């Protein structure tokens, strides 16, 4: 079983690197665009308010936060969308039913390849920033925090995978589900702290977000990498992610079993 999965993983890695130029252009272009917008936005806010620190973030600290947003997002979300639903629509789901590994193990192995590349990009971006800009005030990098951050990223990856799978499996019934996946991405970006760190949200909204899985997807892993999360927050976040993983695995299993009964094998 493990041999099959490692084969799937390495095949996917090779596929992702087929268009290397496009891969790196997108990575650096996306990062540069994202950072430039964040730089000018927060420069305007810090300058207008005449402060050097806002809710625990210095300007350099918040830049490091924004640098990690697209790469952590890449780890948990990957680049591919709508692969399940497309396979359900065109009937190519059949081949997975014949493979000697489960459909979800196959998909997790292939998505993990994307996440691995994103993790490498994350390490590269993180190290480059620390070398070029230095460690910002309020940020403390340690092996414990880096390893905890990687662990939280992987848990967040599984939770997001379950959330996206639940929506993708609706393709057994609905004629198009890509818009639901885009919707999920918008929500994860805002409520996960991808657009603006969660510490800037009003207190009443943070209480709601803490009950939902979104708050643990982007903001918590990044704050952990930056050494801004306490050990208690890291463990609480990990427990919440595991709990959500268990909760979300039920609709995934239910929809998969019901959907397969409906699936004709010739596409919908």
């Amino acid at each position, binding site marked *: 079983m493990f041999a099959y999965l490692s084969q799937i993983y390495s095949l996917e890695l090779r596929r992702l690197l087929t*268009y290397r*130029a*496009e891969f790196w*252009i*997108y990575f650096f*272009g*996306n990062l540069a*665009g*994202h950072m*430039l*917008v964040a730089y*000018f*936005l927060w*420069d*305007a*806010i810090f300058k*207008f*308010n005449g402060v050097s620190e*806002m809710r625990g973030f210095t300007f350099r600290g918040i830049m490091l936060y924004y640098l990690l947003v*697209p790469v952590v997002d890449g780890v948990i979300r990957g680049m591919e969308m709508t692969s399940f639903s497309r396979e359900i629509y065109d009937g190519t789901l059949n081949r997975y039913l014949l493979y000697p590994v489960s459909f979800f193990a196959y998909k997790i192995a292939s998505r993990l390849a994307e996440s691995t590349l994103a993790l490498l990009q994350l390490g590269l971006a993180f190290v480059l920033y620390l070398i070029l800009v230095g460690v910002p005030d309020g940020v403390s990098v340690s092996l414990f925090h880096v390893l905890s951050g990687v662990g939280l990223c992987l848990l967040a990856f599984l939770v997001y995978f379950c959330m996206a799978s639940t929506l993708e499996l609706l393709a057994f019934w*609905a*004629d*198009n*589900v890509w*818009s*639901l996946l*885009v*919707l999920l991405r*918008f*929500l994860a*970006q*805002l409520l996960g702290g991808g*657009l*603006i760190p969660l510490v*800037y*949200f*009003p207190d009443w909204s943070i209480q709601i977000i803490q009950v939902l899985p979104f708050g643990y997807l982007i903001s918590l892993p990044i704050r952990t990498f930056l050494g801004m999360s306490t050990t208690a927050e890291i463990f609480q976040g990990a427990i919440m992610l595991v709990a959500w993983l268990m909760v979300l695995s039920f609709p995934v299993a239910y929809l998969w079993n019901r959907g397969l009964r409906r699936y004709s094998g010739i596409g919908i």
Partner: protein
Amino acid sequence: MRAIKNTLRYIRLYYYFVRFSFMRAMEFRVDFTFRIFMDVIYYAVNIALYKIIFLHTDQLGGWNENEALIFVAGYLLADSIYMTVFANNLWWLPYFINRGDLDYYLVRPVSSLFFLSLRDFAANSTINILAAVGIFAWATLTYQNHFYWYQLIVYIVLIFNGAFLFFLISLASLIPVFWIHGGRGLQSLVWSLQRFMERPDRIFYGWVRRILVSVLPFALIASVPAHFFLDQPDWTLIVHISAVSTGLFLLVYWFWRRGLRAYSSASS
């Protein structure tokens, strides 16, 4: 006389595109509903982001919250027009080029650029234009400062032009597919650079600002037009936006013709 006849022919053709798109959209009612949800969430996320930002600052790029809302409503409207009129067409363009399907469009007795850019009207996004118009009307009605009606009309015209500018930038990012023979060109890069359109232009300065109002005119999509409405009407803005729009259109058209020359049908 011949030019009028030709224009009428293209208008009639576009009418058929729209009619056919509506007929097709009615077949996929679930997708229709999902898209409405997706865009409503997109609008909510964007408004929420600015609401959160203004919890921590009174001004952004020289605008207060009320003024920033006019700008946000403007870019949401430009985005909804782009999504309805152009987005579907651009999505399919790289597939047509890579698979050689462009042949079918090149042999038709109409402009290939017209046909491929406007053929697929996203009828299922029209509700979202109404939602964006609703947000725009709400932002305008709650705007507390005095304005002249002609300022509002010019602003709306400029937003339509902004949607067209966004289309030109997106098209320019796809044309390299004619040469690189794979992938989606630089489109994913444009998606990430789209953030520049969603921030007030006056937070940017230096060479970034110069690029945003000329070569990659994201600032001309909604932000600079908003100044015509919010500040004293400055007619040089109109001249500038018109000049950049015309220049970009001519450049993209030239680039498209070069791309067609490099196109080698199914073997591309």
